[in-house]
């Protein structure tokens, strides 16, 4: 960048401190009338622009400690003891402590020091002054040292270093701090810039209404921004990522001409199992697989008697040439409430209300199974349901709708294989090819409703294509999530950062 452009990038603060760059930071602050943070920030920007180079120097600074500060005011213990002795000449230990107001430690230390300086002697537990008059007024080197603090370690002379060594041994008289000092060196480019002698107001900063109205920009230049510096993150509001995917799946079905069905999560076993020709001793109806709700259903819309009887007949004796399951069907068992185990219970209800055909319906919703929680299992999962009720519907259409849906969901390669569900025949298992794991993953079932389902519910044997593949595995693939629990974890960091469903 040429110097002209560089000049245009300088912010007001950078420009303010430019003339004082050869001074200490404190002085830069004072002279530019900026606080230290602003000065430091401005220096960093100047350095980014190669106008200065900065170095950090470490400096040891010697200062008084907690006790040192106290002694500086009150005198060192040995000084206080010696002053008393100068008057009294002789003292026992108790008197010495009291008169010089010393504690045991201080007394001990003071005696040691004064003895080493040959100013006192101890005889029969008495302290006796050996000092001559006049000597007491001479300052000890420790005293001069403490008075002179703070000092730069590098500036100490030989004598001071040895005094420091002595004092360091004593409790908290001395405190040594390491101070970081920023040294600034102005580069050649910097010298050029300083020469230009810029005034802080030469460039336009924020565009103000005045600038627009009075066209002040005509006479000035816009300060250039440092365009590539990182900016702080912000987060937008967004839909839960699972719901974003669901919305897309809904769109696919809507575009194919499907009507949306919705339904309760608490349903009777009748809609979830019996209406779907699932015999009452079927393992799926056991407590260990299904969440039962041990409360009597007193909701306002009872199931039509006609339908109950027709379902009973299908189970016990069969309909339209079917042999049925040939057992005694128990109406009470069908009344047990559960959390729906599949969205197919919405389809079974829709069939009873259906008036016009051909008709196509879909639903996407939560289903439940009594499972423990781990990385691949959960007690809640999403399913996408669909039915096509059409006199001319056939097995190839079933595969056609599914193939189209999964293609739009991003699965080019899918496989259909035989499966078993009590309510469909033929039945299909849908698998998608996982290119990374290099294997087929089962994602759910489909089929054509058996006459034992359609006749009791719809009153007529008509092909009903039906499917209900799980949705969560598709989602996990898209979002590269390996643990199914992540779908419901609500980690706000994750929710803020997670990518939008871009389909």
């Amino acid at each position: 960048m040429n110097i002209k452009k560089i000049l245009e990038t300088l912010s007001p603060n950078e420009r303010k401190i430019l003339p004082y760059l050869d001074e200490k930071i404190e002085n830069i602050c004072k002279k530019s009338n900026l606080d230290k943070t602003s000065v430091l920030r401005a220096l960093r920007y100047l350095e980014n622009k190669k106008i200065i180079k900065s170095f950090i120097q470490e400096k040891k600074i010697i200062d008084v400690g907690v006790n040192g500060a106290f002694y500086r005011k009150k005198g060192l213990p040995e000084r206080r003891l010696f002053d008393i002795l100068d008057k009294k000449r002789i003292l026992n230990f108790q008197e010495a402590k009291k008169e010089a107001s010393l504690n045991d430690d201080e007394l001990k230390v003071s005696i040691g020091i004064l003895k080493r300086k040959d100013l006192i002697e101890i005889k029969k537990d008495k302290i006796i002054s050996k000092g001559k008059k006049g000597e007491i007024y001479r300052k000890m080197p420790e005293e001069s040292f403490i008075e002179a603090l703070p000092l730069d370690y590098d500036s100490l002379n030989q004598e001071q270093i040895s005094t420091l060594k002595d004092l360091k041994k004593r409790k908290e008289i001395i405190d040594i701090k390491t101070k970081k000092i920023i040294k600034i060196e102005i580069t050649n480019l910097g010298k050029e810039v300083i020469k230009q002698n810029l005034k802080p107001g030469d460039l336009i900063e924020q565009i103000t209404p005045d600038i627009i109205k009075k066209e002040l920009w005509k006479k000035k230049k816009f300060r250039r921004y440092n365009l590539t510096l990182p900016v702080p993150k912000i987060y937008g509001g967004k839909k839960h990522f699972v719901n974003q995917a669901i919305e897309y799946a809904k769109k696919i079905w809507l575009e194919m001409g499907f009507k949306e069905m919705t339904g309760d999560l608490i349903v009777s076993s009748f809609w979830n199992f019996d209406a779907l020709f699932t015999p009452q001793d079927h393992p799926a109806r056991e407590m260990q697989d299904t969440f039962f709700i041990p409360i009597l259903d007193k909701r306002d819309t009872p199931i039509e008697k006609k339908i109950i009887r027709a379902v009973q007949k299908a189970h016990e004796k069969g309909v339209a040439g079917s042999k049925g399951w040939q057992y005694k069907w128990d109406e009470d068992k069908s009344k047990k409430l559960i959390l729906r185990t599949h969205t197919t219970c919405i389809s079974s209800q829709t069939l009873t209300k259906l008036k016009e055909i051909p008709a196509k319906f879909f639903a996407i919703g939560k289903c439940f199974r009594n499972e423990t929680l781990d990385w691949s299992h959960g007690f809640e999962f999403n399913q996408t349901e669909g039915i096509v009720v059409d006199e001319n519907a056939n097995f190839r259409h079933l595969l056609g709708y599914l193939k189209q849906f999964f293609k739009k969901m991003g699965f080019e390669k899918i496989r259909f294989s035989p499966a078993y569900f009590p309510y469909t025949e033929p039945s299909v298992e849908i698998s998608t090819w996982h290119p990374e794991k290099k294997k087929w993953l089962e994602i759910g079932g489909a089929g054509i409703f058996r006459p034992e389902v359609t006749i009791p519910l719809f009153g007529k044997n008509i092909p009903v294509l039906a499917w209900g593949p799980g949705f969560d595995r598709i989602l996990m693939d898209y979002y590269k999530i390996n643990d199914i629990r992540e779908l419901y974890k609500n980690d706000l960091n994750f929710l803020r950062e997670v990518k939008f469903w871009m389909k």
Partner: protein
Amino acid sequence: MAIISINKKLFEKEISKLDENIQDKIAIFGTPIEKIDENEVQLEIFPNRPDMLPYQGFKRAFLGFLGKKRGIKKYKLQKPKKDYLVKVDSSVKNIRPYTACAIVKGLNLNEQKINEIIEMQEKLHLTFGRKRERFAIGIYPLDKIKIPITFKALEPDKIKFIPLGANKEMSGLEILQKHPIGKEYAHLLAGKEKFPIFIDSNGEILSMPPIINSKKIGEITPDTHDIFIECSGFDFLILNKCLNIIVTAVADMGGKIQQMRVHGDKKRILPDLTPEKMKINLQNVNKLLGLQLKEKNLKNLLEKMGYNYKKGTVEVPAWRVDVLHEVDLIEDVAIAYGYDNFVPEIPKVSTIGQENPKEIIKRKISEILNGLKMIEVSNYHLITEKDISKMEIKNKKEFIEVKDSKTDYKILRPNLTFCLLKVLSENIDVGFPQNIFEIGKVFFLKNEKITERESLAVAITGNFTEIRQILEHLFRMTSLTIKIKEPESEIPKHFIDGRTIEITLNQNSMKKESKEKSIGFLGEIHPKILKNWKIKTPVSLFEISLEEILQELADYQR
């Protein structure tokens, strides 16, 4: 889910090499491969095909699918000799009314074959037999038994024999109380005054179904050549099928089937492997599958699946349990045709798509809140006891609990406030402000009636004014009128009194008889509750019932 494992060497010797092509065939046949390694291949058998639970049964079916065998496999049945008889005593009538029995002779057993028999017996018990609730199977060494055999019921203390896995004689009751298998299945005989037994002409007990066989005469060994097989239970049709599955599988291991007379409510000669007849209509097949098969194609495909076909009539093997209706045959035609050979097609049928009106409104509410930088969260519908204790709720009468949950999550959420506070408590280290909302179902009992309804809750790490701004913005953006007022009813415990308002909706605004309906509360959360959740910042929140709003707005749409 039933998994069978087959020795890989045996598979390759008797069926086919296990290359990739054949692995695909196995999957497309409807027996997905669960696992395959150098020793064994594990297959899933769907519950409608118990005839494939024995290895021999799978082999029979799969060889057909591969085109190596066609039509119903024939088994020779030898007529019953005079004393080949099982008498069903009237004492079992109300206890365990039926049995189906047969004899298979001339077996050359070894450890591997015995394991195969035990494996098949266990798999049948577990799945088709619903853990022995429907039926139990017993297999015995014929040479240790003196026929005829009687099936009868005795008082538990009069039943005495050494059961398998024990060393001393035990009574019927002792077996249920002390024997590990007895304890496991005791519930199946609970409350019965008499227990059923099979007993031979020497007065030796063979077994006490559905619990356990005798150690002395109820265990087959490599020295056994002839076996007696019985299935006992409650539904003769099922017992008969079960017997056919076992008998044919054992015959395929190299035995000859010997019929027996079973004299109970009826005099029967078993096994009876006469195929059942069922009509199939070529037109129906082609219509349902979207194919244009000719009769000879149909015959060919049916024969691959182990049926016989002649002029619109299908003979169904006596071991198939799943053929209830023509559609079951059609599925097998589809499997034989190969699911991968069907050309998927979308028919040109015009229907109009339609999103549910209430779902549209939920989506719009979500968009309005997204515009206020709110993040949608999504929680489980079940909550834990611990969650409830944090809300300091004593009266749990309105809560709905599910039965026997395998996790701590066992109560249906009565509101979304729980869930939002939980989310905030799990995110105390995440950057502020935190603005979240959830739309979803809540559940509670109202006048003993189960109530399930849509709810909306919004929570922010902010104050009363800020949360009110959100509420009011939301409703300004819709065509609905809400009013806020000092609460008339008791406010929810988690709010601060004096900083909480009640929200009412002007209902039926489209009609004349409009009225005010309370739909929820808004306020600042009490610090006591925040502390329970370990939340360190103030939180304000509102939760409203969406049902009335959805109804009202859906009315508008029309």
